[in-house]
C-alpha cells in the first residue's frame, strides 16, 4: 500500500488502539535508527560536548571512528591552538580532560602518547591527547574539556599529576 493509504489507515484507528499506534510508531523509529547505524557506511553519530578554555560549551555530532582531533578540526570548534603538530605525536596541544567514568573505559595509552602528554599544560589524571582517542559509540553524551584559561598570573593551572 502507498504511504498516504497507510497514514489514513493509521488515523482511522479507534481511541482504544491509540496506545498500539504509539507503540508501533516508536518501534518503527527505533528500527529506522538501527538500520541507519548498522547499514550506513559512515557509522554512527555520537553526541559529544566540548568545553573550551573560556568555559564555553559546544555540542557536536561526531562520527564513530574519527579521532577527537579530527572532530575539533572538522567541526571548527573554538579551541585556541589545538593540534599544532596535526596529529603526529610531536606536541601536546590536543590535550583533553575527560570525565572520571569515561577515562577508565578508554584504551590504555602507549608510551609514545604518554611521552608527549606529560609535557602538556595543565596535565591531570584524566588527561589524554585528542589525536590518539577515537570516537566510539559508548562515548555518546560525554563531555571533554581543555584546561581553563589562567586569568591571573597568581592562579595556578590544575594540579599536576
Amino acid at each position: 500500500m502507498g504511504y498516504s493509504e497507510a497514514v489514513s489507515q493509521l488515523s482511522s484507528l479507534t481511541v482504544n488502539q491509540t496506545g498500539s499506534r504509539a507503540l508501533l510508531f516508536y518501534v518503527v523509529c527505533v528500527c529506522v535508527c538501527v538500520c541507519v547505524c548498522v547499514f550506513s557506511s559512515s557509522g554512527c553519530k555520537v553526541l559529544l560536548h566540548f568545553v573550551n578554555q573560556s568555559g564555553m560549551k559546544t555540542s557536536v555530532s561526531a562520527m564513530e571512528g574519527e579521532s577527537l582531533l579530527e572532530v575539533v578540526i572538522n567541526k571548527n570548534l573554538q579551541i585556541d591552538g589545538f593540534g599544532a603538530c596535526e596529529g603526529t605525536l610531536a606536541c601536546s596541544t590536543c590535550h583533553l580532560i575527560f570525565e572520571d567514568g569515561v577515562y577508565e573505559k578508554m584504551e590504555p595509552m602507549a608510551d609514545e602518547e604518554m611521552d608527549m602528554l606529560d609535557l602538556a599544560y595543565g596535565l591531570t589524571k584524566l588527561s589524554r591527547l585528542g589525536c590518539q582517542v577515537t570516537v566510539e559509540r559508548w562515548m555518546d553524551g560525554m563531555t571533554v574539556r581543555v584546561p581553563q584559561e589562567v586569568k591571573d598570573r597568581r592562579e595556578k593551572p590544575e594540579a599536576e599529576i
Partner: protein
Amino acid sequence: SWSTPFFSGKHRNVQDSGPKVCIVGGGPAGFYTAQHLLKARDDMVVDVYERLPVPFGLVRFGVAPDHPEVKNVINTFTQTAQHERCYFYGNVNVGTDVSVEELRKAYHAVVLSYGAEANRSMRVSGEGLAGVFSARDFVGWYNGLPSNKELQPHLNCETVVILGQGNVALDVARILLSPLDLLKKTDITQHALDTLAASRVRRVLIVGRRGPLQIACTIKEVREMINLPDTAADMLPADFESISEALKDLPRPRKRLTELMMKTVKTESGQHKANKSWGFRFLRSPLEVLPGPDGKRVAGIRLAVNKLEGSGEDAKAVPTGQTEDLECGMVISSIGYKSLPIDPCVPFDPRSAIVPNNMGRVKDTAGLYCSGWVKRGPTGVIATTMNDSFDTARMLLKDMDSGMLNLSVNKPGGQEITALLKERGVRAVSFPEWEKINLEEVRRGTAVGKPREKFLDVKDMLAVAWS
C-alpha cells in the same frame, strides 16, 4: 614594480579605521600572537616584520631536521600570513632599517616577538679555541642559518663533549651520531651532510652541572638516543645510586624519565660493543677548555666536580673543589640562548636578558608588548610559546577594549612604514615572494630526495623572491 606599497592579491584600504598592530619577529611567537589577534576582531590588521627574507624563525632554523612533524606548525603560520588582514614584511631589520619608535608612531600597538638570537657564554678560558662552538651556532649551521654558513666544524675527532643537557644538547648529539642514510632524507643542509659523511666522531658525552633528577631534556629525546643504531648508552651507575628512593614521590613526567635513564644503566652493563656511544655525565661544570700541543685547538676540558645542595627542581650545584679532565676534540656549549636589546628606546634587563614586562605589557612603555622568548626567557617548546603568545594577545585585546590603547585615532600602519623603507632603499619581501623561495627550495630538494634544499645566502633568497 616594487614601489607600490600594496601587494597584489590583497586589498589594503587606506581609510581603514580598525586597529593596526605591528609584530616584530616572524617566528612562532610572532605568528601565534598574530593569529589570536586576527581571530578576535574582524577590523584588526596585523603586520609581521622579519629580519630575514624567510619566515618561521626557530621552526626553520632550530627544530632538528629529523623532527619534521614538529614543523607542521608552519601550515598554521602560513594560513595566518595568508589571512586577508595580515601582511608579512621580510628582509626588514627592526632596529636598523626602521626604529621601534617609528613603528609605535605608525601603529596602535607594537608586539616584540624577536626571540633570542645569541647564546649564553661559558665564560671560561679556552672558550675561543678552535673546535669550541655554541650549540646555537652548530644547530644554525646544520639548519642553514645564513650567519652560520661559514662555521666549518671539523668532525675529525673521536670524542665530542656537549655542555648542557636540554633538548638542544640531545638534538646535537643525535645529529652527530645518526646514520647518514636517515639524515640525507631530511632538510639538513648539504654542507652539513658532507661534513658528517667524513666525520670520525664515535663518542658524545652530554655533561650537566646537576644530577639526573634535574636533567632538562624530555623523555622522547632520550628514547631517540637509546634507539640510535649501532650506538651504546654509556652511563655511570654511580650517578644513579641514590636516585631510586626519590622515585616514588616524583610527578609522573619526571618519574618516567628517571626510570628510563635507570633502565639504560642496567641494560648496558656487560653489553656487546657497538661502534658508537653516547652518555650523560652529571655534577660537572666547565672550568677551562684545554688546548692541544699547538695551543690553538681544543684537546680536552677541565670540569669542576659538584655536589647537590637541596633536592628536586631547585637543587643547587656547589663545587667540591675536585676537578676532572675529559679528553675531546670538540666542545659544544648548549647552556642556553640569549635575547639581545633591539633598540635603545625599549627597556631591557641585561641580567635576565629579557624585555621587562608585566604579563606581556612592556614596563613603563604604553602600547608596547612582548611575547615568546624575549618575554619569558629562552626555554620551552613551541606549545609553551603558543600559550604565552595567546596570553599577550589577550592582554593587548583587553587594553583595546578598556580604552588603555586609544583606538579613536586612525594610524597609518604599514603604508607609512613601507614609504619610510623605500626612502632608505630597503625593499621588503612579501609572503607571496617568500612562497617563491619556498617553491624553489622544495624543487631543489626533490631533485636529491630531500623535502627541501635550503638557500644559505640572503642574496640568493632575495634573487628568487624578486625574480
